[in-house]
């Protein structure tokens, strides 16, 4: 098992390098030179008070820090090495270190994504099992069609509708993460409750599309497994149906759902990003969107990297979980 994890970790290194290079390439795509624009803006703001001397020293400082006068690959190398050391550069829009901005927001992104994942599994797996055990009944059809509808609603549209519903029908605050009184309070049970009250719409919206996928996979797999000869053998042995279903069939049928975490996570992150932008929840999503629009490249690049790393780790955990759940998978 340990060798398996180590091999898997080593395999992540080239992936990480390629992913980071792609991210670097993408954030450098916009044609305008951000540094010139930034300095122009600074000069305009100060009403020309900036002497050309301090101008030049600023340009010099920034050029030094990010090696802007060096070849592309050196710039990339500087960026990624600094990133790994925790120095993610400076956000020009916020005039703050990127790492500080991310430390505040990324945990909430991850929390919301994980809550959505729990929601997807907590809703999808029972419904999938129900559908499989009651194949071609009314309940099965309703579950299937409901799943399809969930899959077909644009996340941002569902978020809008639920926000209107929450605001005007339930009369509760929507958007944001906390009520003002909990904003700076230390974590407590009531703060968490307040948090849930604010993010349930987001979790519901992000979860709906994933749930349909889980329902379909669980249903299909359980049906396949229940048709296997060994299940018939177990039944012939006289085992109660419950034991057959849950102890023998369910455990096998669930495997692809566990590995599927690697598949669901990208869509959860995508959902989290857009829903947070629409609902103005202060997570990494709106920060990324703003940074992309203002070409605040060290901020947007770092967020993209963090999201990719989150995905890589998710995939790693899914692989380890699968190796642990399914003894047939060889470790070497």
């Amino acid at each position, binding site marked *: 098992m340990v060798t398996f994890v180590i091999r898997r970790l080593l395999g992540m290194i080239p992936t990480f390098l390629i992913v980071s290079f792609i991210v670097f390439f*993408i954030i450098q795509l916009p044609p305008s030179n951000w540094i010139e624009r930034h300095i122009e803006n600074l000069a305009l703001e100060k009403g020309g008070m900036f002497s050309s001397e301090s101008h030049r020293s600023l340009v010099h400082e920034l050029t030094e820090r990010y090696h802007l006068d060096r070849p592309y690959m050196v710039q990339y190398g500087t960026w990624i090495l600094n990133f790994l050391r925790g120095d993610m550069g400076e956000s020009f829009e916020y005039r703050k270190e990127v790492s500080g901005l991310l430390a505040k927001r990324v945990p909430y992104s991850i929390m919301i994504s994980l809550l959505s994942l729990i929601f997807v599994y907590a809703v999808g797996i029972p419904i999938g099992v129900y559908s499989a055990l009651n194949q071609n009944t009314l309940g099965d059809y309703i579950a299937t069609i409901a799943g399809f509808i969930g899959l077909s*609603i644009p996340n941002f549209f569902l978020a*809008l509708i639920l926000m209107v519903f929450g*605001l*005007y029908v339930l009369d509760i605050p929507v958007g944001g993460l906390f009520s003002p009184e909990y904003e700076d309070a230390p974590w407590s049970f009531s703060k968490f409750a307040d948090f849930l009250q604010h993010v349930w719409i987001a979790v519901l919206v992000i979860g709906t599309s994933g749930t349909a996928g889980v329902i379909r996979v669980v249903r299909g797999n359980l049906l396949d497994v229940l048709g296997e000869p060994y299940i018939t053998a177990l039944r012939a042995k006289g085992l109660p149906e419950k034991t057959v279903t849950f102890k023998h069939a369910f455990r096998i049928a669930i495997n692809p759902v566990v590995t599927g975490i690697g598949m669901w996570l*990208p869509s959860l992150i995508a959902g989290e*990003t857009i829903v947070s932008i*629409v609902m103005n929840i202060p997570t990494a999503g709106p920060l990324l*969107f703003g940074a992309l629009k203002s070409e605040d490249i060290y901020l947007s690049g770092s967020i993209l990297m963090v999201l990719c790393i989150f995905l890589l780790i998710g995939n790693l955990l899914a692989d380890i979980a699968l190796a642990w759940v399914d003894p047939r998978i060889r470790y070497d």
Partner: protein
Amino acid sequence: MTEQKTQGRTIGQLIWRRFLKNKLGVIGGVVIALFFLVTVVAPFLATMDIVEQSAQHILAPPQKIHFQDEDGKWTRPFVYNLTKHRDRDTLRLSYTEDRSQKFYVRMFVKEFEYRILWVLPGRIHLFGVDEGCRWNLLGTDPFGRDLYSRILMGSQVSLSVPLVGVSLSIFFGTVIGVISGYFGGRVDYYIQRCLEIMMSFPSLPLWLALAAAVPITLPSAYRYLLIVMILSLIDWAGLARVVRGKVLQYRDEDFVLAAQMSGCGLGRIILKHLVPGTLSHLIVCATLAIPGMILGESALSFLGIGITPPLTSWGLLLKDAHKLEVLVHHQWITIPGFLIIVVVLCFNFLGDGLRNAADPYS
């Protein structure tokens, strides 16, 4: 018995028969066909030029068609003009019908000029009303532009983006998949690793990054093309894997060996013997990829970094609904959202039906 039945039918016929048994799939297919038909003749159905603004009709509600006059007598359908009021306290706009003059609905009216599919010119529109009235069948947007016409013209973008995008995906997916599967070995290994990396990217953040990199000042048409390319960029990786799997499976079959023995060139083997075998799976995957593209385009346009005016799309139309107070008092602006749901749902039904039918021997 079944043996005899299946004899003499091609795989295509078998797939088709199986598909017809899936009612949801057939319904989905029919609805999609209707949508595309409407899209092609959209300007003929539209009642107004989509760029025509009107300060007198800002966020006007859908205008009712009356079939009965004041005395309750049935007449030809007609509409009334709307008059704008602004509430002195809340400053909210409201509209009342101006009952002084009736405007009858007429068929085949002459209105603004258009071209169907860029070639067929015309001035005749399916319906309209008498001169002197602005008829907004589904209400207007914050610029007073007719929502009904905008939805129709927006469908051209919303429904063509996934088609063009999926075509691109199919092309690249097939080429890369065939190369990977047919040559195998080292080439296959590296291509597969690259595909895995591409598929592990979070799609939406990547789309956001790429779409934001496209200059907003670019002409609408170029932007449209770039958005399509961005959307299919991640998408083709999945298709390439499917094709590769199938090619790998067929590569060592006897019929390929036979083709090689009889002196077929590489191109012929790939195009005539390998690609057709992957076709059914390719079509299924492509159909199932379309919903993701429709949703992706609408999300990007909704955020303002997708399609730009003067073109419009359903996602772009929904941008006006982002302000909740606008949405609450003017529910008609959410109509494009429901159309997206219907189209995506139908594509999902269709794709699901095709998937179940694609393997007729199972």
